[in-house]
């Protein structure tokens, strides 16, 4: 389940053990991770989703071979602990289905908190290529708003702002500023929050990195931040669009 590694392409090989039916339809799905189920990891979601497909009885395609795998392709998953309104994946079906019916059936089969928000027939091109940026809403309980605003100004004025993070390849410096398209402090609500549009990059700049960068510029954040991905898709004039309905 690598971000871009799985594809739905490939002709079934009738010589292989367990030959499978060909894929005749590809659907793209938008799903949300809400409430306490924001703690599901990418792998947790993958298992839950595969089971939901089977419970819903969808004609999912499989790879051939001794260990057939369902044809599901994930893109750019949110980190464990972050909520999301805009996660995307693609599935390959062996029979043409009505997207609205697929949405209803899958949503009913998933636990509340993992919700299917939209389903469309896939357009040509790779789904991952459409996910250019994300808009994050980061709630910062017990944060000092004045210090947040000062930090945000300093952050935006800087050319580069690097934070250190442990990745699979070891400790890396990540330029947060370079990935952030815009950043605003929402002071009006009960809980202070930051809204940020962040470009999709490798390695990914996470909402935690944005908070880390603001802290480095003097923001006082006492509570535990809760991030929600509000949107993900093509970046047009600084605004994150809908990748399923371009």
């Amino acid at each position, binding site marked *: 389940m690598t971000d871009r590694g799985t594809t739905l392409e490939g002709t079934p090989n009738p010589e292989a053990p367990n030959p499978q039916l060909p894929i005749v339809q590809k659907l793209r799905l938008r799903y949300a991770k809400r409430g306490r189920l924001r*703690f599901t*990891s990418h792998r947790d*979601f993958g298992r839950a989703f595969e089971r939901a497909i*089977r419970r819903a009885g969808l004609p999912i395609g499989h790879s051939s071979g001794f260990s*057939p795998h369902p044809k599901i392709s994930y893109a750019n998953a949110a980190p464990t602990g972050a909520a999301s309104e805009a996660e995307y994946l693609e599935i390959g079906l062996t029979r043409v289905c009505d997207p609205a019916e697929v949405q209803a059936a899958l949503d009913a089969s998933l636990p509340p908190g993992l919700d299917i928000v939209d389903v469309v027939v896939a357009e040509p091109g790779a789904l991952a290529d459409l996910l250019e940026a994300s808009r994050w809403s980061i709630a910062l309980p017990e944060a000092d708003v004045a210090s947040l605003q000062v930090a945000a100004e300093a952050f935006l004025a800087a050319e580069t702002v690097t934070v250190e993070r442990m990745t699979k390849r070891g400790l890396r410096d990540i330029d947060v500023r370079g990935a952030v398209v815009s950043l605003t402090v929402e002071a009006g609500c009960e809980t202070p929050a930051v809204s940020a549009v962040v470009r999709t990059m490798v390695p990914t700049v996470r909402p935690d990195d944005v908070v880390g960068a603001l802290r480095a510029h003097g923001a006082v954040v006492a509570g535990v931040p809760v991030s929600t991905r509000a949107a993900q898709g093509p970046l047009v004039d600084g605004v994150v669009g809908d990748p399923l309905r371009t």
Partner: protein
Amino acid sequence: MSVESLFPRLEPLLPSVSKPIQYVGGELNATVKDWDSVAVRWALMYPDAYEVGLPNQGVQILYEILNEQDWILAERTYAVFPDMEAVLREHGISQFTVDAHRPIGAFDVLGVSFSTELGYTNLLTALDLAGIPLHSTDRTDDHPIVLVGGHASFNPEPVADFIDAAVLGDGEEIVLAISDLIREFREEGSPGGRDELLRRLAASGGVYVPKFYDVDYDDAGFIEAIMPNRAGVPERVAKHTLMDLDAWPYPRNPLVPLAETVHERFSVEIFRGCTRGCRFCQAGMITRPVRERSLQGIGKMIDNGLAKTGLDEVGLLSLSSADHSEIGEIATQLADRYDGTNTSLSLPSTRVDAFNITLANEFSRNGRRSGLTFAPEGGSERLRRVINKMVSEDDLIRTVAAAYSHGWRQVKLYFMCGLPTETDEDVMQIGALAKRVIDTGREVSGRKDIRCTVSIGGFVPKPHTPFQWAGQLGHEATDERLRKLRESVQSDKKYGRAIGFRYHDGKPGTVEGLLSRGDRRVGRIIEAVWRDGGRFDGWSEHFSYDRWATMAEQALADEPVDLDWYTTRERGADEILPWDHLDSGLDKDWLWEDWQDALADDPVEIEDCRWTPCFDCGVCPAMDTDIQMGPTGQKLIPLSVV
């Protein structure tokens, strides 16, 4: 008085602990009930991590049976990892259930399922985090009844100080009987408080309450007597046996976790009990007689379970699944039914002599073809006679040859080391056998990429088995014997990496042995180990032998007994064993005779009473039970078309 959810306090802390998903609940098919709508409330604990505990069939079955009653609620709790324990302590948050995040101290009963003795320290963590006194004698009317079940409860003496009660055997019916008794007691206004409730449970005959029994020791440290100290309490407490499995098709609404767990399959218990008579096997001894689920009953459970879970693998569970009287029909008919659905079937426990290729082919027809696993247990034929698991080497070779010639590349073989009468020579034959397996595989398949993995566990003598009198092999001797075996296998370049060798050191086995056959004095060691930081003893990264050894020495300093006395010492015929007042139905004289048959120069084998006459182990007459088995000659009921 309603009990509030601890989740709002937990939620901000979850990002800082490992695998937070294990603490949030919300599994598919989980049940949350209104606290005030019921009369009796159970917290069910599996005292290991969520990923191990969630798939446990026993807990899932009882959870469902209890929640089916509108006057009972049941929630689940699992051992929290040490990082979470530290967080809970720092913030003063109780051990909680994952269903509604209620503190476990608020429930009427804390029911704990002990599959293994190595979970004992985790029970103490949970009690302590919940503010429940560790010792039953310190608890008041405000605390839950701490009740244990599971295989380890056939000798709960090492935890006798920490528990209020224990139940032996199948839990399905007794949990409802206990709930009834508690409800009645409450309706009467709880006369006499906690002590009276426990007395009523004990007097019912189905529940063991340790504090109503005195254990006396002689000067040498041997048990002199175990006697009830309360009127109306039975001298021996009997196990429970569920008859007619088809009438109990649980789990009916299996839990589907979000977190990854150790078993990602839907399991159906195709029969309970085993009468093969392997002398080391506690499970086979304490779960008699065999009670089969029918072919149609199995089919219905699988249909329902797959529909409700969306899982793609079915495990046919039992102690020896290929022994079901209709296993061939089950395999063929299920493979037909799920043809083309990418649903795989697995037989987790198969005897070499009950296995055949037709069966294996059916089981891999619709899905993954995993390796084949067999458990000869003993390396030499002589030793296999001692343990009464008679499989001839030629049979084994014939079976693996068939498997390799039908496309399997990998065979796993399980053995034990430290069995009674075992010598170095017996163990060295494991290596010879593995080499013969590889030679045969290469010959019949014409390929070089044949593998055989040899997995070896240290033998731990268990209560209620013919080997309950055996001296356990010390961990140094075990390690030494296996070092020689490994050397002889690996020095032969012809086999290179074709033979894999899996073995963990013998030290955990010694501690398991102490806890398995221990008496009440062992409780002091458990508490000292826990106070010193002992947690998750079944996990090699947490287990510390030195801590157990040191604490055993300190805790037993004033006693005439020590760690060796509990583990490596062979017991005599007349010795009163700590579990003698707990009745598994097995006749102690029969067990002794079987032990002597094992030790004979020419060890005596016994057959299986499913296909030969009764050999008088004593269970059926003592428990008023009988073998229930097919064949039924039924066909699977066709699935309704969606």
